[in-house]
């Protein structure tokens, strides 16, 4: 069977890969959406935290012998602490100002982080091995899927589901959402809002770092790995609706699929298709697909 001049098995293969990349986008945009939705900060350092997560895993393995599974917990934790320090020192002074200031600050932080890592590790980066348990491939008939990629899909979607549940279905989530609606009122109920905000930023950063650890075995761990991705992820969040958790996940996965499809039909356009879709969506729905008008 031939679809758009491409054999069906090839299409299925590309869609599977699109799903893998899409779940990745979803995980990254999730953190961005959480930070924007709850703090109103356009976190341009997200790509840098993703990169630092991957490097934390690499350094952990090289210097302390920390294996992949522990790195999945420890790297996000380490990077989250860094995020919290940044929030306490700099970001918290910007909440009452125009979002542009937060954007500029986080962009600056991203450049500094990239510069330091480039100076220390070089632009071509480092290799991180695939953990033993996840080596090998599944033969799906129409393609071979590395077991590790399947694990990335499962892990990302689980984390997305858990985050959604935490925010929408628990008391903590209700407090978080209330704090963004009216921080002073929530504070009047005796809830420590600055602590909540700090924790939220830390959690968003941890999500980015987790994505970094998940990516480390499949891409070169390089200082620039985040900067090329963060722009796409921003487009994903904008398409989904800034701040909408559900929108971020849905548009992440679907854009991964569309991008995968483009890579077969017209590969040269694969790095702009997301932005074309963003433009179309913004014309049609300025607040994004799932954003509140």
């Amino acid at each position, binding site marked *: 069977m031939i679809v758009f001049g491409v054999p069906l098995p090839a299409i299925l293969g590309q869609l599977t890969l699109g799903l893998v990349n899409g779940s990745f986008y979803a995980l990254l945009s999730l953190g961005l959406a959480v930070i924007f939705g709850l703090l109103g900060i356009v976190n341009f350092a997200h790509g840098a935290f993703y990169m630092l997560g991957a490097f934390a895993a690499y350094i952990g393995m090289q210097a302390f012998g920390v294996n992949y599974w522990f790195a999945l917990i420890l790297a996000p934790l380490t990077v989250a602490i860094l995020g919290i320090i940044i929030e306490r020192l700099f970001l918290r002074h910007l909440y009452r100002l125009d979002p542009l200031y937060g954007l500029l600050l986080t962009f600056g932080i991203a450049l500094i982080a990239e510069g330091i890592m480039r100076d220390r590790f070089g632009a071509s980066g480092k290799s991180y091995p695939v953990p033993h348990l996840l080596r090998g491939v599944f033969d799906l008939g129409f393609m071979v899927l590395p077991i590790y990629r399947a694990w990335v899909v499962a892990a990302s979607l689980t984390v997305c589901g858990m985050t959604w549940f935490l925010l929408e279905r628990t008391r903590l989530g209700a407090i978080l959402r209330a704090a963004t609606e009216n921080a002073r009122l929530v504070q009047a109920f005796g809830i420590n809002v600055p602590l909540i905000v700090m924790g939220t930023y830390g959690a968003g950063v941890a999500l980015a770092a987790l994505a970094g650890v998940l990516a480390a075995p499949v891409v070169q761990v390089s200082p*620039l790995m985040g900067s090329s991705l963060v722009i796409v992820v921003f487009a994903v969040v904008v398409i989904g609706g800034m701040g909408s958790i559900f929108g971020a996940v849905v548009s992440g996965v679907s854009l991964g699929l569309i991008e995968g499809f483009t890579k077969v039909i017209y590969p040269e356009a694969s790095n702009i298709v997301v932005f074309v879709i963003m433009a179309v969506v913004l014309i049609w729905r300025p607040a994004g697909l799932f954003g509140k008008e």
Partner: protein
Amino acid sequence: MKLGSLTGALAAIFGVLTTQAAAAADPVVIGDIDDLSGVYADAQGQGGIEAVNMAIADFGGSVLGRKIVLLTADHQNKPDIGATKFREWADQNGLNMLLGGSNTGVSIAMAKVAAAKKVPFIVIGAGGASLTGADCTPYSVHYAYDTTALANGTASTIVKNGGKSWFFITADYAFGTQLQDAAARVVTANGGKVLGSVRVPLGATDFSSFLLQAQSSGAQVLGLANAGTDFSNSLKGANEFGITKTMKPAALLAFISDIHSLTLQTAQGLYLTTGWYWDLNEETRAFGKRFFAKMHREPTMDQAGAYSATLQYLNAVKAAGSTDSDKVMTELKQAKLNDMFVKNGYIRADGLMVHNMYVMQVKTPAESKYAWDYYKVIKVMPGAEADGTQPDPACTLVKK
């Protein structure tokens, strides 16, 4: 108001005085415009700047009694930035010679400035052979390697070893397409076939889709017509998807920095072509050792090339007794070039520096005996074999 115009006048006088003072000292100005922060920053980058500084120091820091100074800039892989910076230095800083770093697209833009401003332009890190073909200028020299030599080295070796059918994954800009074209010509000339290719935007984050297309083509050889992180990520993906079991990967351009970051485990067995390797002989090892002491890594061919090009330019200035661009170019084009990078090299009418190229195979982890022991020499290609004996007829400088 009166005070304001007085300070203005003073400033103007001071400006004139300082300009005159500068004219008296009149340093020899060398520029280096390269990717200092992006995907190619390890091929030349800061290490290249260090190598140029080493060359200036080895030359004694001055020529014709004039101090040698080095200007550097990051072109961020953007042709407009590279060309603007070159023009600015030529107009305002008395630039005498420019070294060009990675990225063929940027180098083509800078070559046009070299022709307009009549400033010698020595291309090191960019590979596109059109720099001595359709884009050649009387002031350009293509120094370390070019896409023709890479194809003649790697592609012909692999075709002759039985890799007859090819699929290319190509970086979608001047360098990638020129490299693919050159390799495809070599493949078909040697009785091989090109089954397909896919053009991937520079800096793509995921290559798996393209690798899958390569695999379904049924080709024997996976030709990687890309460089830097793009090359590393495509090779990593090929390993992960088990493609290297059925297809033989061919690195059409890989630097030792790429092999180092990929590790031998992933890169072992790869064929590649290089203009220089630190472990070729006593001279190269000595340079490697000095470089390593400063940068904590062995130099790439581009970094060694930047050292050599600086030295040879300064030799030419000394021999010509002038920094006049035409005199220096004449001197450069009639000189025999000899140093730790090049033996009996010479610069052809079209600007190509003809020198030995080496076809290498990446060692297995077991074969590697010490740090950075990565390559074994498969073949030494004399310059004439690497680049042909005839200049590219597309170059307008060549008499037809």
